[in-house]
């Protein structure tokens, strides 16, 4: 069993042009184990993506306080690639496009990066695994010879993120708004992919605005984030309640002094 703990995490970003620093996360606490699916919901601009990028190690975010422990080990000083090899995965909202590098080549490099030099995956094993996962995600085989994300539609990019997840098999996958821009069919396919990973050796942190995704990937725990903190934690029912009452309702119920970005009042 692997564990991921976020303790009193404070994160700020600096605007490149104005040089002004702004605190986004103001003391986030979160604990999860493999075998569990957690969802983080929250209004726009509340720091959900900041949390996911900081766990992964995006260099643009500065941790000013707190720690992130993976299996008890603080990972804050580790570069991104090392965190990935230790078992973290982030399905990105806006994956980069890389011309000249095929999807297949990239996937092999990613798989082999976490294996020993003298224990690299064989071509046969790789192809078998790839074919199985392509079929599961209803993806065409030609996707593998295309250049990484280049010219992919929004939906193709999301599927490709999940394909990577299935191929790499991390301990913890953070899915950052994997549902945005997906039609209902694609949403079902993506959910099927994630659900196929469910088990004792896999945990996931799902970041979403909407409850809809959670009908397909039913979480064990739901956290609500507002104003850079987790303000409420509950089970799958919490997501349904939010869907019905909205974030403003919960904010007022909890008596929080938080400005919602899309708050017109």
């Amino acid at each position, binding site marked *: 069993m692997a564990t991921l703990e976020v303790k009193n995490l404070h994160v700020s970003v600096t605007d490149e042009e104005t040089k002004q620093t702004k605190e986004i996360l103001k003391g986030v606490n979160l604990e999860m184990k493999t075998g569990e699916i957690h969802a983080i919901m929250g209004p726009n601009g509340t720091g959900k993506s900041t949390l996911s990028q900081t766990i992964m*190690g995006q260099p643009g975010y500065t941790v000013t306080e707190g720690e992130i422990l993976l299996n008890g080990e603080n990972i804050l000083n580790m570069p991104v690639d090392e965190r990935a090899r230790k078992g973290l995965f982030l399905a990105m909202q806006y994956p980069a496009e890389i011309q000249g590098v095929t999807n297949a080549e990239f996937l092999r490099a990613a798989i082999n990066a976490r294996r020993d030099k003298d224990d690299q995956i064989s071509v046969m094993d790789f192809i078998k695994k790839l074919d199985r996962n392509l079929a599961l995600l209803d993806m065409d085989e030609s996707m593998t010879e295309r250049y990484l994300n280049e010219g992919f539609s929004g939906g193709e990019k999301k599927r490709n993120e999940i394909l990577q997840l299935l191929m790499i098999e991390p301990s913890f996958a953070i899915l950052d708004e994997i549902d945005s821009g997906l039609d209902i069919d694609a949403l079902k396919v993506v959910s099927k992919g994630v659900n196929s990973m469910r088990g004792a050796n896999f945990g996931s942190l799902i970041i979403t605005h909407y409850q809809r995704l959670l009908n397909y990937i039913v979480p064990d725990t739901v956290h609500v984030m507002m104003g850079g903190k987790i303000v409420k934690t509950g089970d799958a029912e919490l997501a349904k309640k939010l869907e019905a009452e909205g974030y403003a309702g919960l904010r007022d119920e909890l008596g929080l002094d938080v400005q919602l970005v899309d708050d017109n009042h």
Partner: protein
Amino acid sequence: MTQDVQAIADQLEEASHQHGEPYSLLDRRLEALEMMKKLPMPRMTRYRFNDWPLLSDQPLTFEDSDPKLATGLIDQDPDVIRIVQVGQTTTTVQLPEELRKKGVILTDIFSAARIHPRLIERFFMNRVVKPDENKLTAAHLAYLNAGIFLYVPKGVEIDTPIEAEIIQDATKDQPLNSHLLIVAEAQSKLHFLQHLQTVGDKTVPANMMVEIVAQEGSTVAFSSLDELGENTHVYFKRRANIGRDAHVDWAVGLMNDGDTLGDMDSELISQGGYADAKAIAVTTGAQKMAVTNRVTNRGKQTTGLINQRGVLLEQSELIFNGIGQIVHGAHGAKADQQNRVLMMSGDAHGDANPILLIDENDVVAGHAASVGPVDPEQMYYLMSRGIDRATAERMVIRGFLGSVLTVIPAKNVRDKMVAILERKLADGQKY
């Protein structure tokens, strides 16, 4: 001094006779020798190379090179269309009988001068590149000592790439003045794939010229993989005259280990011509490279595209000039260019200069240029999958160079280029 000049001319004449060259070629050599006295060295925008030893003081000699020098450098394949030259020696010519019967000519330039004098007189350094352009073009003709002639008659389409393996013999202290002349007659179609390599490590200049005559409606795809040696000082000039509705695609990989100065020119001389000039370069060590890629729109509705990408490692220096010129009267012409260089080391010097010279109103022209480090977004993405920084960097660079790599027709050449690239990058990353 006068005597020296006379002695040089006499030597040239003697060597040409010994070599059994027709008088027409000898006369042109002597004319060119005369021109050399007055002509300046080539000039390059924003670059100085005065101290490069690009001119040799060696007399013209013809010496055979040992064909065995090519061992291990070339894969043997009897089924490809191919010409191999080691130094001045042509070791292989493979041209299917069927193409020969259609009138296709693939031979060394001196045989062509003897057997096809009309064609050589008409096209060789006469229409596309002229000897009086600068001292090095004149020297090229005066001291020409190797070359290839390809002639594709009207309407003949060749689907298999035609390969030229040119191996500079630097085991000898002898300059290489090598000329490739490609004539694609009207409505013909061909792919040409040139591969330049060096054996030996003598410090010598190589003056490598390519002339392409693309007649009306013809299609020429020209790829070149240049990997000349560290001690070879390279001057190259590659130019195409592109006729009415003709189409020329360049895909050039500049992977020489030594100092390199060169021009690529696409002359869109007639209506509806199209040129796409792609080049990539990787520089390492203390190497210097300066390349000018020029497209000139003369005809109406012509299209000229330039895409140059360079990667600089260690203390190397790379200048990419892109010149898009639209002359007066070229209505409806289109010129677009990209010049981008990626700096992999703080000690490297890179420059990307787009230059647009436009003398007509009714045209579309654009340019983009960039000089900078690898894209951090791409690096983050690859590394977030566990790929280490050095490998991720190499992948991003390959992506950056992908626009040229992907258009090279032969997979084995593409793979070779990737392999050279990987080696240079891996070496450069240790810096």
